[in-house]
């Protein structure tokens, strides 16, 4: 079976998966204690009030019926309205998407060269000082929770030194208009993935550098770095590509911590809020979006894996 056919089959499966995730999430939110009415009632959980709210939100209809209605709407491209504000869900999503896309896109753009670079450097000088320093720094950063890192960076570089704005409150809707805003969030977002990916690249690189084809490529007079980057590196990337896909997935799902520390209202905040509010239509729509990105990221990573191990792609 060719890779194209494989990809097509996976995409078809993906549609099924997305619907399955949406269903699963629907079931999960149904099973969550309390519904939007209870949450809306807040600290005056008067029973009559709750049942009125339930009526108003049409939560008194059977779950299956609501689910079917939602699915029918989805098929027609209608995501419904938010339970809490009544605004169309599509609009709510559209507002949260751009910041997430900007953050995720820029992070990924920087992540690949930085983490691959660090991994390659550590592998090339394996056991040397640079390797140890890189290991210590990346693993050390990894072991600091995002929150702490974010807050310390803001305290130092934004509040104390004033180099960057501390948060994005009052920033233009398009974050790219004010690039200084993005520096600290990107640093925080990069800290952990750089570690996990560069460690995997390093491990793969060390194996690849010791292989016969690398030695032979050097014999063939190819320059040292060309051999490392064009010959050893592709062989080292398969696990890192998977991790990269996970990271992309994580980033596109919105990163609650960074979003809240820097006040960037993206999809993560939206998910957090709508789960807190049990705003099922918004949760559902978000999960469809996330499931789609997950399926896409996984497919891309799997295709990359096969491209990076062509022999395995050929079997069966």
């Amino acid at each position, binding site marked *: 079976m060719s890779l194209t056919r494989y990809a097509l089959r996976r995409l078809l499966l993906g549609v099924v998966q997305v619907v399955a995730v949406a269903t699963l999430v629907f079931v999960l939110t149904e099973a*969550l*204690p*309390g519904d939007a009415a*209870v*949450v*809306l*009632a*807040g*600290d*005056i*959980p*008067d*029973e*009559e*009030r*709750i049942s*009125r*709210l339930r*009526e*108003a939100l049409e939560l008194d209809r059977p779950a299956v019926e609501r689910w079917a209605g939602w699915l029918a709407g989805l098929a027609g491209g209608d995501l419904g309205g*938010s339970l*809490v*504000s*009544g*605004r169309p869900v599509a609009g*709510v999503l559209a*507002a*949260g998407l751009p910041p997430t896309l900007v953050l995720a896109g820029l992070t990924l753009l920087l992540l690949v060269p930085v983490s691959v670079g660090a991994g390659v450097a550590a592998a090339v000088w394996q056991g040397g000082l640079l390797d140890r320093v890189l290991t210590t720094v990346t693993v050390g950063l990894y072991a600091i929770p995002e929150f702490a890192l974010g*807050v310390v960076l*803001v*305290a130092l570089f*934004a*509040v104390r030194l*004033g180099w960057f*704005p*501390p*948060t994005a*409150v*009052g920033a233009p*809707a398009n974050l790219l208009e004010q690039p200084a805003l993005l520096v600290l969030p990107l640093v925080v977002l990069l800290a952990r993935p750089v570690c996990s990916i560069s460690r995997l690249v390093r491990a793969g690189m060390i194996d690849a550098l010791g292989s016969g084809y690398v030695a032979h490529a050097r014999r063939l007079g190819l320059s040292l770095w060309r051999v490392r980057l064009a010959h050893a590196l592709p062989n080292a990337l398969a696990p890192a590509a998977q991790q990269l896909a996970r990271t992309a997935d994580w980033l596109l799902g919105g990163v609650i911590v960074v979003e*809240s*520390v*820097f*006040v960037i*209202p993206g999809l993560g*905040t*939206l998910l*957090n*809020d*709508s*789960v*807190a*509010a*049990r*705003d099922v239509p*918004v949760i559902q729509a978000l999960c469809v979006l996330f499931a789609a990105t997950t399926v896409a990221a996984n497919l891309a990573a799997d295709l990359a894996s096969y491209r990076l191990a062509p022999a395995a792609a050929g079997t069966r």
Partner: protein
Amino acid sequence: GCAAQPGSDIPTSSQPRRGGRLRVAFAGGGAQETLDPHLANLFLEASRSKAMFDKLADYGADVSIVPRLASKWEAGKGLSTWRVTLRAAAFHDGRPVRAADVLHSYARIADEKRTFRAKANLALIDLRNSRAIGDRTVEFALKRPYAEFPNVLAAFGAYIVPEGADEFSRPVGSGPFAFGSFQPGRSLLLKRFAGHWDGAPYVDELEYLIANEESARVNAVLGGQAEYAHDLTPATARTHENGGRMAVVRLSNSGMQAFAMKVDRPPFDDPQLRQAMFLLADRSQMVDSVLSGAGQPGNDLFGKDYLYYAADLPQRTPDLERATWLIDRAGAKGMRIQLDTSAAASGFIEAASVFADQARQAGLDITAKTGNKDTYWADVLNKGTICCYRSGAMPIETHISQRLLSHSTTNATKWARPEFDALYDKAVGTGDETRRRALYLDMQRTLHAEGGFLVWGFADWLLGTSPRLRGVVNAPANTLDWARFDKVWLG
């Protein structure tokens, strides 16, 4: 009396200045939020509603009632009709505020099919028989005699909107600020309303920014992105108090902190055990550890320093010996008790942790169980035996009527006593102020002796303000002068 007491090193004498854009940072409701003042629930929404709308009356610093749109009110015979006179005021679009607007607003809130927060407060009004007398007078008919009717006018969320208003994407109100622009989940920009009856605001523009993370609100003030940060933790306040980059304003007596014991079921149906709990609690340690010192110890009564508060009752101090003895007598030694807590309000988890430790010393095995923060209030209303509890400012009468009567809908302690209900009815049925005061004292004495609320403290509400911001006064959260931006100015 609203004692002006801004942050530490701000001179109070400086002259108010006109102009500028004031940016205030609040925790918010996310992208789903709306501007309907009657839906107001969060502090952010309350403050925004207050900026764009007016109530007929509001709470003063001691939670007594101060007139707002209503210039005066007088009870009819038998306390079951009330005549309210409106002052000359106008909505942002120039229309005057009329009695019809008031009736429309109250009808909207009290609508059977809807669930606005103030609905319960307004339940007493017989709207069908209430009527407008001319443009500026409303006569309210009540379903039964009620001396505390002004409390209703000041109820949380009882804002006056123009007649017919039911849609609030571009709200029009009579408040000091008029609507500018709105990005849900991000910001709301308001403009100075020159025609406000209480004098126009000093600042030209007011922008509400949303930052759910406390550190972000603080950083926004420190970094000059905002002038006012609502709701700081005590630890943050201590961190920045003396830094000079941010002034910390403490709004004392803003939040009651308590444990609510359910008196209708074991083990706390035993008054001895409740007594023991009252005695084993080390309130000052709780204030120190949980509130980081930002608060005062409580005396198992709601509304410290509010109107009618029973300040004369002796302050409880820890008495481990007697507590242990009482626990023994109640046969509860070593009993395992689950204390419900959650992240629903700040300090709950800490309070549970500290209290469990204290109880252990008296021989009770209290374990904290963390519940879901979003549904916490509904969960603890009827389930469990003891839970963390808190309340914002409201008149003591409202506290009693909503939480402590047999028919109260949010009775978290399940305190239901006919003789107590009777006392309450007597109190709200008399027009005699001294007699009412005596009755409230009676009720509080009973609650202090054997009630279900273990009120261990009153938390300060903490604000961070930029040194430029002047005129911020110390008023408990939810009262008129809290989060009020028409009387502050940028220096």
